[in-house]
Each structure stands twice: as C-alpha cells, then as structure tokens.
C-alpha cells in the first residue's frame, strides 16, 4: 500500500472479516428538495459481491454513488444519514473525498474512457495518486485482469475512444483496478458487453473478490444470481408530489432472495412477474 500524503481517518489495517466493508444507516438522498431514496439500512460484507437489483429509476445508481461520494459532485444532491467505510463515517468532515474515491473505485453505467491513449487511461489514476512502482507492469497487469490485454497489447498508444463499446467498458474496469482500491462499485458494467465478455467480467469479479469488496448494479437477474453473494432489491413508490421515491425492499443472501424471498414484491420481481 502506498503512503498517503493526505492524512485521513481511514485506517490502513487489515479489515476484520466480521466487520462490514460498507454500512448505511438511515441514508436518504435528495436531488434539490425532491427525495430520491429514503431511509436505507444496509451492511455490505467485505470480500463478497453484493448485487443491487430493482426497476429502472428506483435509485440504485444514486445509492451506489453515495459510497464514494460522487453525489457530492452533483449540484443540489444531498445525503442525510450515515455511511460507514470500515467503521469510519465517509461523510464526516475529516474524511477527504478524493482519498475516498481512490480507495473506493467506480465503473460507470456508460463507458467513459479518458480521451487519451489506452496506456494513459490506466496510468493516469496511478500517476496522480503518486504510484511508485513500475508503471508498464501496472498497466499490463490491470489490462490483463480486466480481460482486455490481448486485444490492446499492440496498440497501447491508440486512443481509448477508438475501442468498441465493450472494450471501452473493460478498459474502464482496468482503470478502476489500477489504483488498487479496496471496494469496486460497478454500475451495470456489462450492459454494453456481449455474452463472452460478460462471462469474462463475471469470472474477473469472482477473482477480484479475494482482494476487493464488490458492489454491482445489474438488470440481469441471471447475472445477479450467478455472481453475487448478497442481493439488495430496491423499488420505488409514487409520492404525493407525483415523483418516485426509492426504498430498499429486501436485502438478504442471494440464494434466499431468488428462491425464498420474504416479500411478495421481491418474488414477483425476480421471477419476472413484476407490475
């Protein structure tokens, strides 16, 4: 682990396996004065894969963005309640959001490679965070782990934007791995991928969870049941103002959610009989 110039409250000690990696306590999120999600209580275990499922617009991405404080960047977005990362409140004044984002990486719903070379796409994050090791090695390793090395090894100088959508997404995953985060947040990372790349990403996630904690948003029920250890089902209800307010319906081991859910809602959704 590299030395951190900027002192934060986040400790560097080995995580206790019992302690959740991430924890939400009564988190509500607002865009302006409109509430988007209400009162979420959630424990995300370390070194496991947690899937967020639920209908479009119910607030999965919004909740995910809380974990690395990218909601801070949206004008008018407001988070109430507490979010803990290994016991430290991420929204406490002493926590530096820039350091949070290096430790908790993110892959976005739409691939967004930097308009730089493939090599630079990986090296950029490492360099600005003061990476001391061998950069070429880091780039190669990250690209290999994201199952894209063979496709790009001969054109590392080409633009990241010259890749296909699926390749771009894997490049973004490689970019997220390269800064060696502890948690990786993935917002529908496979929605632009073919079945073979999807399978590779899923294998990759299984491999990564030895080292990382993974939270993934997905619309693909099979994917959620295949890869995740725990599943959170979100839904939204109509509010009096005519908007939609998201909430957490059920959170349990993936097996239970898919075979023996406690709520009828969940049963209908996972079996495809929703609405």
């Amino acid at each position: 682990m590299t030395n951190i110039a900027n002192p934060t409250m986040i400790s560097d000690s080995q995580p206790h396996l019992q302690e959740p990696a991430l924890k939400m306590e009564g988190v509500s999120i607002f865009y302006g004065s409109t509430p988007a999600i209400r009162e979420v209580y959630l424990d995300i275990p370390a070194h496991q894969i947690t899937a967020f499922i639920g209908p479009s617009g119910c607030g999965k991405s919004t909740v995910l963005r809380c974990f690395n404080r990218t909601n801070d960047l949206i004008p008018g977005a407001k988070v109430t309640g507490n979010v803990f990362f290994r016991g430290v409140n991420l929204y406490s004044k002493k926590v530096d959001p820039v350091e949070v984002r290096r430790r908790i990486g993110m892959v976005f719903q739409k691939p967004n490679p930097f308009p730089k070379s493939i090599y630079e796409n990986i090296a950029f994050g490492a360099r600005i965070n003061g990476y001391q090791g061998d950069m070429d090695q880091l780039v190669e390793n990250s690209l290999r782990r994201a199952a894209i090395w063979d496709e790009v090894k001969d054109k590392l100088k080409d633009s990241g934007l010259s890749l296909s959508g699926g390749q771009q997404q894997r490049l973004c995953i490689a970019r997220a791995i390269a800064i060696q985060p502890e948690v990786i947040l993935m917002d529908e990372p496979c929605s632009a991928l073919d079945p073979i790349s999807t399978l590779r990403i899923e294998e990759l996630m299984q491999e990564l969870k030895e080292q990382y904690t993974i939270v993934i948003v997905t619309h693909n029920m099979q994917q959620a049941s295949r890869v995740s250890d725990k599943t959170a089902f979100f839904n939204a209800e109509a509010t009096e103002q005519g908007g939609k307010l998201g909430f957490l319906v059920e959170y349990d081991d993936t097996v239970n959610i898919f075979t023996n859910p406690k709520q009828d809602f969940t049963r209908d959704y996972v079996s495809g009989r929703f609405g």
Partner: protein
Amino acid sequence: MSSNPYSAPQLPDAHSSDFQPALNKRYKLDRFFEFLTWIATFVGLLVLMMLLYDVISDGASRLSWQFISSFPSRRPAAAGLLSALVGSIWLLCVTAILSFPIGVGAGIFLEEFAPDNFFTQIIEINIGNLAAVPSIIYGLLGLQVFSRIMRPITGGPSVLTGGMTLALLILPIIIVATRESLRAVPNSLRQGGFAVGATRWQVIRNLILPQAIPGILTGTILALSRAVGETAPLITIGALTFIAFLPPLSLEGLQTDFTALPIQIYNWVSRPQPEFHTNAAAGIIVLMVVLLTMNTTAVLLRNKFQKGRI
C-alpha cells in the same frame, strides 16, 4: 411522375396504410429551404466581394514597401503607416497578455469551481451584459481610470492604457467563449476523473482543458481580431494620430503615446485630399491582412490541438 430521387426501383406496397408519407411535398420543402440558405450565403458573399473589390481597386496601387515603412506625413505620397502598424501589433500583444489569462481564469472559475447560487448568477448575467456594452463606453472608462487616475503607471494615453482598455472590452467575450468550451466537455469525463481519485484541478488540467482548449483559443483570437479593428475606444482615450517614432521595446515603451491602424485610417479618410483616401484604402488592405493572418492562426492552432488530442 414522382419527384422522389430514390424512386426506382419501387418498393412493394406497404402493409400498413396508416401512413401518408407525402414524399413529394417533403422533398419540395427540402429544396425550398436549401435554396433559401443558398441565397443567404450568396448575398453575404456578394456584399463582401463588393467591399473587397472597392477597397482593393482603390488602394492596391498605393501598397508598397515605402508605404509600410514610412511614418505619417503631411504629403500623401510620402505618408506611411509604420507607426500605426507597429502600434497595432504592440497593442495586440498587451491586450492578449492581459485578457487571455484573466478571461480564461475567470471562465474556469465560474464554470468549474463556483457554486451555482444567486451571487454567481448575477455575475453571469452581468458578464453577458458587458459583452453588449458599446465600445465607446469602455473608451470613456479607459480615459478616466487608466489614462487619468492611473497616469503615473500608464503614462497617459499610452500603449498600456490602450491595451488595458481593449482587454476590458474583450474580456467578457473570452470568458463566455471559455465557459462555452468547458461546458461542451461531457460530464462523464469529469466523473471518470474524480472516480480515479483526481482532485478538481487535476481533472480540469489533465482531462477537461485539453478538450476545451481549441474552442478557448478560437474564441480568444476572434475576440482579439475584434480588438484590432476597434477605433472608438482608442480615440476616446486620446490616442494620437501623428506619431513619427516607434515605441521602444521596453517597459517605458508601454508608457509612450501610440497610434494604431484603425485610427490612422480614420484620420486619412477624414482629410479632404483624395490622395489620402487612397492611403486609407491601402491601410484597410493592411488591416485586413493582419486580421486574416490572425484568423488563419486561430484555425491552424485549433487544428493542431485537435490533432494533438486523441
């Protein structure tokens, strides 16, 4: 007979009869608007051509090395625009050095750093308004503040005063151009940068600015072209018309009196002798060459930066 250009071979009959494509009518409308835009382009070009022809036929014969390398004179045949040309170039440099960093800096602050609140909205509206203030008002401001109050620093109606006045004049244009260019960079790029742990400035410096710089440069150079052609504010601050020396290339040079191409041209046009009118036409040609050079530079710079980014 159908006027549909893609008429042969005909498709088999459609299954649904709920649509009435009326292709003929739509293609006619297409051609009608094509014609309108063509007329608009043609009218613009025609007027421009006539102006060019008028100026060149009047002034081209007067263009010579002597004309460019001589100081103004009472005898039209001996007069030249050396001091005006050098003054304009001087002025341009001072204006660019003052307005580029301030304008781009302010644009970056307003677009990337400033919170969106009542205060910044007021600033935004006012910058928009400033861009529309007549240039003579800036001249009056320059006269009072730079030329009179700040006389110990600027030395009166000097190159520095002129440059500062013109910089003020084009500042709003540069700020607006900078903001537009920054706004055109997609937000997903910023999010991607933040997600790998970049600070705000690192995101701006490494990811946003490289995308925005061609637009910023184009806006700046177009604003500078406007500054080169400005006459009113320079006359207002009291720039002279008869300068028979070149400002020395030093800090004192900034404080010397100056004249500029548009002032010289204006002065020649307002004389009774027709020979001076020929001089004015030749001066306009020189001014146009300067402007053309600047606009070409803008295009070249933009292309260079666009090629540089991948």
